[in-house]
């Protein structure tokens, strides 16, 4: 356990050396809300009350998604820069290795999302410790699931990194577009809405909104959402544990 933490701490320290990125990410978040969010909010205020809040949470969920995807990419980079075999030769179990990656992912997500979350909650005048904690938990679970999906997909990278990048870009576009991050399911044309049911972001976003007290009429059933988000996290993480061993076969040994 101690070693898992040492391993995670090492990754996190590397992450913290990239301070400028975080500042940039927060600034971008603020900008996006200030311009897009307020504009869109005016346009749709008749249909969805408080759309700015809805939109802000969607944007945070996208950040969670990006950060989860980044952990997946980080993993692939590890493999290609030759670090993965080194990590796998350390006296940590495979599960421990994945846990260290997950801790890294959670910290990465937390740093990117927590300040915007607090900022937004404060702005809408709804900042409570309870709300922030539950929102973070919901987004963590989603983040773990996304990380799991990305790591599970990483075996593609060993056939071809280009293919992996293309696949991820495509998958990201679909998962984000066909979800409720920016628009409630009830407003979606019946042609699209069934597809959104397959995007984990739909559940993550609606669950986060629900814990923050958004009008449930615009959201999925929270129990269903919580179940799916948890299921995806557990399922894809155990799948990635299996895949790590397979993936390494594809890395050039020499």
């Amino acid at each position: 356990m101690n070693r898992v933490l040492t391993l995670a701490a090492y990754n996190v320290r590397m992450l913290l050396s990239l301070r400028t990125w975080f500042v940039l990410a927060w600034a971008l978040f603020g900008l996006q809300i200030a311009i897009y969010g307020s504009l869109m909010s005016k346009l749709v205020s008749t249909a969805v009350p408080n759309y700015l809040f809805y939109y802000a949470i969607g944007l945070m969920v996208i950040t969670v998604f990006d950060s989860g995807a980044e952990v997946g990419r980080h993993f692939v980079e590890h493999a290609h820069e030759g670090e993965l075999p080194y990590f796998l030769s350390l006296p940590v179990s495979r599960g421990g290795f994945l846990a260290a990656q997950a801790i890294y992912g959670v910290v990465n997500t937390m740093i990117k999302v927590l300040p915007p979350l607090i900022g937004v909650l404060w702005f809408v005048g709804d900042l409570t410790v309870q709300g922030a904690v539950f929102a973070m938990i919901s987004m963590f679970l989603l983040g773990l699931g996304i990380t799991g999906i990305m790591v599970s997909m990483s075996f593609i990278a060993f056939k071809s990194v280009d293919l992996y990048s293309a696949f991820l870009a495509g998958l990201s576009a679909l998962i984000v577009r066909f979800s409720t991050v920016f628009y409630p399911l009830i407003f979606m044309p019946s042609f699209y809405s069934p597809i959104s049911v397959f995007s984990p972001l739909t559940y993550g976003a609606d669950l986060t909104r629900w814990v923050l007290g958004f009008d449930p009429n615009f959201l999925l059933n929270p129990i269903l959402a919580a179940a799916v988000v948890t299921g995806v996290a557990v399922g894809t993480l155990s799948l990635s544990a299996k895949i790590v061993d397979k993936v390494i076969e594809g890395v050039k040994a020499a």
Partner: protein
Amino acid sequence: MFAVETLSLSKRYGKTDALRGLNFTVNEGEIMVILGPNGSGKTTLLMILCTILKPTSGTAKVVGIDVVEDGTKVREVMGIAFQEARGFWRHKPSSILRFHASMFDIDPAKRQDLIERTMKDLELWESRDKMFMHLSGGQAKRLETAKVLIQKPKLAIFDEPTSQVDLRGKRKIWDKIRELRDQGSTIIVATNEVREAEYLADRVTILHQGQRVVCDTIPKLKDAIAGGDIVEVDFEDPVSEKLVGSLNGLGGDVSLSPEGNQLRAKVSKAEDWVPKMTSASYVAGAKIASIRITEPSLDDVFLHFTGKALADQP
């Protein structure tokens, strides 16, 4: 108990058979050198021993622990210096070594001292402030070796530890590897360099196309080649037919190849043959300029057992 034991170990990548039913053992406390040409399966074997790759069939045990069943335990007792240096690209050598030391529970009080000493020993101290990605190939290899030296594992594996390293550095690394053995570690070194094997090996395993060709101490391997010693004699004048004739008349198991002023002889025992040869030359009136006696090299051993020269491998 063997420090390492494999039983009909095989590894297949797609259509390539990298290891074919390998039986291989290493005794505790010895330096075992695996000598084989490119692609003979050295790295594949080492990667299986350190649990990174899984065998396709067969078993492998490290200090009695199965590498597939109990991977984490195996990783606790071994350390590997990879053929290609593995590092964190944006980190400095000392921080990489500190991380490694912390993963293997090296006493924090002694850590810094040990790291500094090892870096100085391997002439890495001057590069301590460079990022890993800015190290030269040889420096990165030294760092790779330093990790294992600091760790002092029960089983230390070095995959071509001195490729890309200059001659001085090679000597340093070899001496350090021997020192590690003297402190009680069991050591496996994979190489395709005969000189490295000669310098380090307590025993040598020759690996060829994923199979063990032969395994023994170097003197025994050399003895196994018929013909024993090689004597090279330089004469002041071209070697005459007559001289060759009288040398052939000396008896014993001898094969002579004269060329210009030089005569190369493969003889079973140089110390018996040379005195007879000098007196016969004296009688024939041929003046000797110099005599060199050499043992067959591991190259010759490799050639003998595989029918191919190590140097001529693709």
